[in-house]
C-alpha cells in the first residue's frame, strides 16, 4: 500500500518525516498556549477566552456557539496578531543577536524531538519496532546534549536587549538551567542502570526503557515511576526548572523582572520564544513518560502487546501495523498532553519560589538527594541483578 513511499530517496524521505513531526509539534505548542489560558480560567473559576469566532462557523447552530465558548479560535486570532503586528526593533539593542536569539530558541527545542520515539508497532515476526525520527542508542544523551544548547537563547536575548531586566533574567536563566541539569542527569541514571542488565546490549535509548516496562510479571510490568519514585520526582522537579515553568519561573517572573529576557521582544519574535517553551515542555513530558510513565503502554502492568491482543478479540484489524502504530502514538500523545495539563495545574497551585530558594533547592536539596538515590539504586540493582 505504501510502497511508493519507500521509492523516494532516503534524504527526501527523512526531510519529509522531520517536517511531519514539526508540523505536529508546532500546532500543539500553539494550542498549548490556548489551553494554558483556558485551564487558568477554569482553575480560577472564570470563563476565560470565549469571544473570537470565524463568521461562517458562528452560523452553525449549537456547534458554532460551543466552539466559540471553548475559545478555539483564539489560537488563530493570536497567531494572526503575532504575524501581522509591527515587528519593532528597539534602537538600543544589538540587532544581529537580538534577531538571532528567538531562532536559537527554536532550534534545540525542535531538534530534541529527533531522539524521542513516540510510538511503536509490531512487525510480522512480532518484534516491537519503535517509531521515531532517529533510533539512536544514545537517545537520553542526545536529548540532554541538544536541550543544553537552549540556554544560549536566554543568554543572547538578555544580553542583546541591552537593558537591565532582560540581562538579570538571562543571568538567572543560565544559572538555573545549569544547576538543575545536574540533578536531572543523576536522576535518570538508576533507570539506565536497571535497563542495562548484565548480558544485554548496552544502550541509552528510550525504546529499551519502554520495553523493560512492558515485560510480564509484577516487577516487569511496573512502570519506573513506581519502581523509582524518587528518581521520577527529582526528574519532574528538574523538568519544571529546565522548562522555566512555575514554580521555577524566576527567569521570567513578571512581578520583578517585567518579562525578563523577552521584555524587549514583540510580535512573532516573542511568539517564537513561547513556541520554544511549549516545545520544550512537550519533549520534556515525552521523555518523562518514556522513562517513568511506561511510554506507549496504556496502563501499568498492561503492555501494548496485551492491549492489542485484547482489542484483537473483537476488532479484526487490531493486529495491522498501521492500527497498532496509530494506537501507540495516540496513547503516548494522550499521556504527554496529560502531563502538560499537570504542568498548568501546578502553575496555579504553587506560588513562585524566590530566586535564592530556587538555588537552595537545586544545590542543597535536590542534588544530595539525587546522589543518595543513585547510590541506593546502584547497590540495590547490583544485588538484584548480580
Amino acid at each position: 500500500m505504501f510502497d511508493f513511499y519507500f521509492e523516494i530517496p532516503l534524504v527526501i524521505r527523512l526531510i519529509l518525516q522531520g517536517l511531519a513531526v514539526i508540523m505536529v509539534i508546532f500546532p500543539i505548542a500553539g494550542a498549548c498556549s490556548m489551553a494554558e489560558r483556558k485551564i487558568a480560567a477554569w482553575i480560577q473559576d472564570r470563563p476565560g477566552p470565549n469571544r473570537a469566532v470565524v463568521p461562517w462557523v458562528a452560523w452553525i447552530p449549537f456547534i458554532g456557539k460551543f466552539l466559540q465558548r471553548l475559545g478555539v479560535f483564539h489560537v488563530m486570532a493570536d497567531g494572526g496578531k503575532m504575524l501581522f503586528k509591527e515587528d519593532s526593533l528597539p534602537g538600543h539593542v544589538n540587532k544581529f543577536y537580538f534577531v538571532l536569539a528567538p531562532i536559537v530558541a527554536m532550534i534545540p527545542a525542535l531538534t530534541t524531538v529527533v531522539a524521542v520515539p513516540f510510538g511503536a508497532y509490531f512487525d510480522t515476526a512480532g518484534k516491537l519496532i519503535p517509531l521515531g525520527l532517529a533510533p539512536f542508542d544514545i537517545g537520553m544523551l542526545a536529548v540532554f546534549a541538544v536541550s543544553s544548547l537552549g540556554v544560549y537563547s536566554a543568554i543572547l536575548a538578555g544580553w542583546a536587549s541591552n537593558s537591565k531586566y532582560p540581562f538579570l533574567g538571562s543571568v538567572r536563566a543560565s544559572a538555573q538551567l545549569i544547576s538543575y541539569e545536574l540533578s536531572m542527569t543523576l536522576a535518570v541514571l538508576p533507570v539506565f542502570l536497571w535497563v542495562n542488565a548484565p548480558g544485554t546490549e548496552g544502550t541509552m535509548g528510550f525504546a529499551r526503557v519502554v520495553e523493560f516496562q512492558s515485560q510480564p510479571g509484577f516487577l516487569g510490568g511496573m512502570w519506573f515511576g513506581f519502581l523509582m519514585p524518587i528518581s521520577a520526582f527529582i526528574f519532574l522537579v528538574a523538568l519544571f526548572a529546565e522548562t522555566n515553568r512555575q514554580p521555577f519561573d524566576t527567569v521570567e517572573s513578571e512581578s520583578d523582572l517585567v518579562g525578563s529576557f523577552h521584555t524587549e521582544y514583540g510580535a512573532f519574535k516573542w511568539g517564537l520564544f513561547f513556541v520554544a517553551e511549549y516545545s520544550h515542555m512537550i519533549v520534556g513530558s515525552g521523555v518523562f513518560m518514556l522513562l517513568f510513565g511506561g511510554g506507549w503502554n496504556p496502563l501499568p502492568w498492561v503492555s501494548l502487546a496485551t492491549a492489542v491482543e485484547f482489542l484483537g478479540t473483537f476488532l479484526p484489524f487490531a493486529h495491522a501495523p498501521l492500527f497498532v502504530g496509530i494506537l501507540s502514538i495516540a496513547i503516548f500523545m494522550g499521556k504527554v498532553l496529560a502531563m502538560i495539563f499537570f504542568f498548568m495545574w501546578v502553575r496555579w497551585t504553587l506560588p513562585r519560589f524566590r530566586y535564592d530558594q530556587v538555588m537552595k533547592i537545586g544545590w542543597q536539596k535536590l542534588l544530595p538527594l539525587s546522589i543518595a538515590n543513585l547510590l541506593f539504586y546502584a547497590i540495590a540493582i547490583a544485588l538484584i541483578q548480580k
Partner: protein
Amino acid sequence: MAQFLFLLFAIFTVLCAVGVVVNKNAVNASICLILCLVGVAGLFVQLDAYLLAFVLLLVYAGAVAALFLFIVMLLDVQGKESFGLRGFRTIAGFVAFALLLAGIGSVALKGQIVSSPPVSVAEGAQLKLYAYQLFTTYLLPVQIIGFLLLISMLGVIVLSKKHEIAEDAK
C-alpha cells in the same frame, strides 16, 4: 551525499575556528567557538561516533562555552588591547606556524592510508564497548582525571570561600 556533508561541516568548522581567532568582539568569538564545536560534533556524527558527538555538545557547547559567553557578557570584555607581534611572541608565532606547516606537509607528502578502514564499528563507538574500555584499559587515566577534577573543585571552593571571608572582614 556523505562527501557533500563532510565538506559542508569541514568548511563550516574551519571558518568558525578562524572566526574565533580573528574576531575582536569577544561575544562574536565565543559564538564562533560554539558553532565550531557544533561543526566538530557534526563531523563526529559522520564518523558514526555518536557518543563522542553528543558528549562534545553536552560538555563543551552546552556547559563550558556557555560559561565563557556568560562571563564575557558579565564582564563586558572588549577587545581593546591589541596583541602586536613583537619580541618573544613573534618567535613563538613563527615556530608554531612552522610546526603546523611541517605537520601538514608531512601528512600530505608521506602520509598514506595503509589499508582501507575497517568496516566494523570502531571500538568505543558503541556505548557498551566504550564503557567497558573505560573500566578496564583506561581505568588509570579515568581515575587521574577524576582526581584532577576533584582538586580543581576543591580549589574553586577554597578560592570562593576566601573571597567571602575577606569581604565579611571589611
